[in-house]
């Protein structure tokens, strides 16, 4: 077993591509170390990417925001501009684990861990976020929802690293929100969750919408029908009812230690509705 701390993304990609046994990328480590402790993974090579220039930064660009793969979630909450533009994404990222875990965990790691219950992913999907993937054959930019392909599985090829997550520049009258259900007030994994991202026109009519559900299927669900139910309308009671019904119907959840199928279906609708109400208010809708 080796631990390395490359200083360039090219070096990291090269080391990963050449690795003989199982290799793991280490940023925050809040998933990796737990899996190692439980004996679920035994990497031959651990590649710590925190030494790579730029990966620990949030950059505001002409196109929006670029969040480096090694930026801890706590830092997202300390970035005023990001928080103002994408409050739903930030609140989702800030829900992962405890204060202690916040100081380490990253949204890129949350995405690559590929848990259907990952908190930041529904918010990122709703936000239309993209991932910059660097690999042996170059760089590609993909929608975040195509990264996880099933519980614990991703579409990343051997040697590929997500370098950053991109969030677009905010249009006027936009707002997003994320809500999850947990039995306690902190420290739990989402039983079910919902992220909603809205853009309104001057009159408060929804122009664009994205609705995503977490822990409702093997991967995070982008519910296009739910978005369609909101577009072209103000957020009246009937629209919210419809949204809730569509979201409950779109769920393909399982019974497990965290919740039942019935519970997840029902609460997915409740959360979508509540998140939409918050997003709408954040977008300036009344």
């Amino acid at each position, binding site marked *: 077993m080796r631990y390395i701390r490359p200083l360039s993304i090219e070096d990291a990609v090269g080391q990963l591509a050449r690795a003989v046994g199982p290799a793991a990328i280490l940023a925050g480590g809040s998933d990796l170390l737990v899996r190692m402790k439980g004996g679920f993974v035994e990497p031959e090579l651990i590649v710590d990417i925190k030494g790579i220039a730029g990966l620990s930064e949030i950059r505001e660009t002409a196109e929006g925001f670029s969040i480096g793969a090694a930026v801890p979630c706590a830092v997202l909450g300390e970035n005023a501009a990001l928080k103002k533009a994408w409050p739903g994404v930030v609140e989702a990222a800030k829900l992962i684990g405890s204060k*202690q875990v916040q100081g380490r965990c990253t949204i890129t790691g949350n995405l690559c861990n590929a848990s259907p219950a990952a908190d930041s992913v529904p918010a990122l999907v709703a936000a239309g976020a993209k991932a910059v993937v660097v690999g042996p054959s170059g760089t590609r930019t993909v929608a975040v929802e195509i990264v996880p392909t099933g519980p614990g599985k991703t579409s990343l090829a051997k040697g590929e690293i997500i370098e950053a997550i991109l969030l677009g520049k905010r249009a006027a009258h936009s707002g997003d929100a994320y809500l999850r259900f947990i039995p306690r007030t902190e420290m739990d994994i989402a039983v079910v969750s919902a992220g909603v991202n809205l853009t309104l026109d001057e009159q408060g009519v929804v122009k664009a919408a994205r609705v995503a559900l977490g822990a409702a299927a093997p991967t995070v669900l982008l519910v296009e029908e739910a978005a369609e139910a909101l577009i072209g309308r103000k957020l009246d009671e009937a629209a919210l009812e419809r949204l809730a019904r569509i979201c409950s119907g779109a769920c393909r959840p399982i019974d497990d230690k965290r919740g039942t199928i019935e519970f997840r279906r029902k609460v997915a609708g409740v959360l979508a509705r509540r998140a939409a109400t918050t997003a709408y208010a954040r977008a300036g809708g009344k």
Partner: protein
Amino acid sequence: MAGVAVSTVINGDAVEYLCQPDEPLLDVLRDRLGLTGAKEGCGTGDCGACSIILDDRLVCSCLVLGAEAEGRRIETVEGMAHGEKLHTLQQKFLEHAALQCGICTPGFLIAAKDLLAKNPDPTEEEIRFGLAGNLCRCTGYDKIVRAVQDAAQVMKGA
């Protein structure tokens, strides 16, 4: 397996050690350096008993590799008191009987220190959410919250 040589600073002192590449910092602190103030309650980041401050960030030392500490600054409960003087939080935990068995106490003290450094005048709710990553099974948290509230008042006045 190749050992990793690490130079770091713990509680203000330069420290060097050799650790395994997959060895958690918690194990390094406890087993290699004799700093047993940080406790292992779970090893998976769910209890906060191993809390330390790493470069001004509160973290669980069970979720950090020893190898990652190279060139960083670590604060543990052993560094809270100065000479004969306890840290205000330590003193208030004693006065309020904010501990029964005491196994969670080092983690709570470190988390509370971090909390007050970032928010010197927290509300009860901010304290409760700020300390939600630290489990205590004895006290029901009542006296811990009161001790932190009292310490905040004293530290503000200082």
